[in-house]
């Protein structure tokens, strides 16, 4: 069974998903970070595939993308690094990134490589739903990969229902209309939006992302969803890390326990 599906069958509370950029801070940090995440008790690892023009991302993730590219990261290199990943890492792994590098790699080739190394799903924020259903979904299905869509406070109910229909694993509930890296916390307005979505009885669980950074925000988000996603703050931790393993374990502990 797909590891994301399996995870949510047993755990629907305080699921912690960490995003990091492949090849950052240095080219070969990808696997050490994955292993540290598993050891620290993260539930899902989301590996960013760096792109030259990440329009949905704020400065922190933009810079990590640029540094990773300068370090020599590419999909080819990433799949090389992830070979043998499943001998060491059992938690679900998602690849997150923009559609263009995936298109150039070739959709079929990409999905096949994902299956080979043991990737479970994808977040491709600039892949439109119609194109996904018509051209991509059959290939994703063939290789057992789930596609995770985003919703925002402005997404209409009808559209959320359609996203729920074609999503697999979970729905990425963006906390506010913004690029990544905002640190505003969770407002009353956001709570109303979370409650509205919760009342819809969707088939997919939700994880809340954007603005989650510490124990307080993680705990709060977990009250309104199956858990949360931390991105920019984790990149900041990695940027400042003197020892990846120690610092990742310590940070995740601080998020989970306080």
């Amino acid at each position, binding site marked *: 069974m797909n590891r994301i599906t399996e995870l949510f069958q047993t755990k629907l509370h305080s699921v912690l998903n960490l995003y990091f950029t492949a090849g950052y801070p240095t080219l070969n940090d990808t696997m050490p970070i994955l292993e540290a995440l598993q050891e620290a008790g993260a539930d899902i690892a989301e590996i960013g595939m760096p792109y030259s023009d990440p329009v949905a991302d704020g400065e922190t993730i933009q810079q990590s993308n*640029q540094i990773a590219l300068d370090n020599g990261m590419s999909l080819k290199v990433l799949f090389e690094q992830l070979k043998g990943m499943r001998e060491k890492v059992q938690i679900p792994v998602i690849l997150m990134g923009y559609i263009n590098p995936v298109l150039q790699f070739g959709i079929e080739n990409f999905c096949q490589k994902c299956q080979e190394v043991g990737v479970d799903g994808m977040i491709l924020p600039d892949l439109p739903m119609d194109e996904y259903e018509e051209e991509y979904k059959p290939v994703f299905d063939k290789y057992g990969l789930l596609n995770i869509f985003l919703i925002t406070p402005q997404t209409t109910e009808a559209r959320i229902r359609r996203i729920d229909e074609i999503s697999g694993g979970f729905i990425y509930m963006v906390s506010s209309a913004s690029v990544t890296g905002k640190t505003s916390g969770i407002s009353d307005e956001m709570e109303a939006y979370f409650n509205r979505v919760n009342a819809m009885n969707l088939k997919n669980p939700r994880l809340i992302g954007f603005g989650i950074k510490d124990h307080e925000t993680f705990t709060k988000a977990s009250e309104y969803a199956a858990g949360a996603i931390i991105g920019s703050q984790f990149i900041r931790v990695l940027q400042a890390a003197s020892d990846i393993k120690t610092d990742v374990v310590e940070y995740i502990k601080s998020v989970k326990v306080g």
Partner: protein
Amino acid sequence: MTSTEQHKGQETAFAVNAKGYYGKFGGAYIPEMLHPNVEELQQNYLQIIHQADFQEEFQNLLKNYVGRPTPLYYATRLSEKYKTNIYLKREDLCHTGAHKVNNTIGQILLAKRLGKHKIVAETGAGQHGVATATVCALMGLECIVYMGEIDIQRQAPNVARMKMLGAEVRPATSGSKTLKDATNEALRHWINNPVDTHYIIGSVVGPHPYPDMVARFQSIISEEIRSQLLEKTGKENPDYVIACVGGGSNAAGAFYHFLDELDVKLIAAEAGGHGIHSGMSAATTFLGKPGVLHGSKSILMQTEDGQVVEPQSISAGLDYPGIGPLHAHLWDSGRAKFYAITDEESIEAGFELTKLEGIIPAIESAHALSVLKYLNAEANETVVVNLSGRGDKDLATYMKYL
């Protein structure tokens, strides 16, 4: 100079389809955060544009504010030199000095009808930024313009104009620090300000419906060319229409009413930079492959890994690694022929027009003029060159070659 001509069957339908595609190109490849705004535009733009009061206001401003119709000028000495009949469509005489204002007038009227009271835009040469700042001043709307740090330096007069017009010019400091990055920043700004802000994109790029919407606002150029040619020559159709292509808005406007007139040869001039094999070029159809940037699928200069390549051109307005999806389709179908014009060639053409006709063209437009020497048009043929803008902003660059 290099040129390609592809012939892949007969394509006569060059209009966008319901999903925003021109053939294989187009669509709306946007993150969910932009979906409500883009969908609002998709669902309303045609209906708003067709409203009588919109048309009345639009046409009135084009006439009395922009100064349309712009002349179609028979360039006698240039025609003598190239032994054919050359007409210049004088978009350089538009208020603010380029064709860009046709689009910004249209979009600001649309934005007002959508209840938006803030405007964000990107700019390369600064012409679109100035045209946006101008209509914002005219309508009393707040205006933020993102401009690459490098472009801010090489297009200083336009930066000053935008500031005087009350716009806030924000430097884009990421990536190549030019038009591509300014566009990224404008998109991010729109993501962060979805409710009260309209994004006035400056060319026929971006997610559907922008390419079609901008082409419609610019289509006034070919509408006028047709009636002016009829009046001057007794025929609506020229043999050639030549325009430069950055994103492709002036070309889309100049081609629009000729797209299905297959006897009219459409010619696009891209920025060859130092030459297409120099690694310093912006000639997208020569160097690019199908890809997705800024919300649409088109032809894109990119590495094998799908990372966008930083383009290079003497002309800030053509310094863009993609082209609009309509142009990708015109190229792919063979409907238009593309030339890559080097920096040097464009400067020569700029000086030539100045000496022969007393008109200093924008360096962007000089790329289109540069095609004349490759055309070998017959003595009885008619050539229209879209003179998209004037060269005042480029004087510092021209002076280096004097």
